[in-house]
């Protein structure tokens, strides 16, 4: 949630680049609605059936604090044609990109609107 808070705080920087931030978790709709209310400028997606996480092979089995499955924290840049331009996965699940690092990747990988 720290990561989402940082991205929410910089939403104007993403808007000015015509980039939207889509935040995906394995939470159900109730949990995702709470997250969406907390971060109104992000697009919060519920992937309770793990369709998205499994398609991208991002499931980290039994790696949640409660011992269940969760997603490996990953950031993917996708251009407006739906083509993947960049993927980042940290070495450890406690690491995240800062908003500045994400914006730097956007400027580098999706120059002038992709």
């Amino acid at each position, binding site marked *: *949630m*720290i*990561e*989402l808070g940082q991205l929410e705080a910089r939403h104007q920087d*993403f808007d000015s*680049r*015509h*980039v*939207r*931030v*889509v*935040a*995906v*978790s*394995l939470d159900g709709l109730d949990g*995702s*609605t709470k997250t*969406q209310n907390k971060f109104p400028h992000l*697009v*919060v*997606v*519920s*992937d*309770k*059936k793990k*369709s*998205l*996480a*499994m*398609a*991208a*092979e*991002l499931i980290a089995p039994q790696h*949640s*604090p409660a011992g269940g499955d969760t997603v*490996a*924290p*990953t*950031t*993917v*840049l*996708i*251009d*407006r044609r*739906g*083509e*993947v*331009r960049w*993927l980042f*996965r*940290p*070495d*450890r*699940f*406690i*690491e*995240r990109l*800062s908003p500045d690092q994400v914006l730097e990747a*956007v400027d580098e990988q999706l120059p002038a*609107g992709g």
Partner: protein
Amino acid sequence: MTVHSGAARVGDLDVSRPVGYTEDMNTTSPPVAPPKSGGRLLLWTGILAAILGPVVYALELHAARLTTPWYAPALTTLGAILIIVSLRRRFSVWRVAALLLIGAVTAGEWWFLLSHARLPAYTGPVAEGHPFPEFSAARADGTPFTRDNLVGDEDTVLVFFRGHW
């Protein structure tokens, strides 16, 4: 009659030296008491070093800095070493207990960063220059969110998030 050489004597009394003089006064000084600390400063510095890592990491989290805190196990290790040195200066049950506790914390921190928190390298199907794989998920309001929603007027930063971080 006995003839003395050197110091003059009156009967059995040596009058060349002050009254109360003994040979010991001329050759030794009173023993110096050993320092009372016995490594106490080392002990407390070690304990503080061990506590400092988690405290700094908590401050980093509060400041929304999400990096790997290598300094935490390094400081705890330093703390354990200082406690070992203090234990060599003075043995006590409390110091042994402190060493066992901080040793366990040190091992736990190294295990967490070197093993538990590690993520395997990504080997999945998402690849640069290729379309994102098909999927079917839902927005928070319940409306569908599929691969088709990645195509449009905007680029997308897709963030898979979890937990507190």
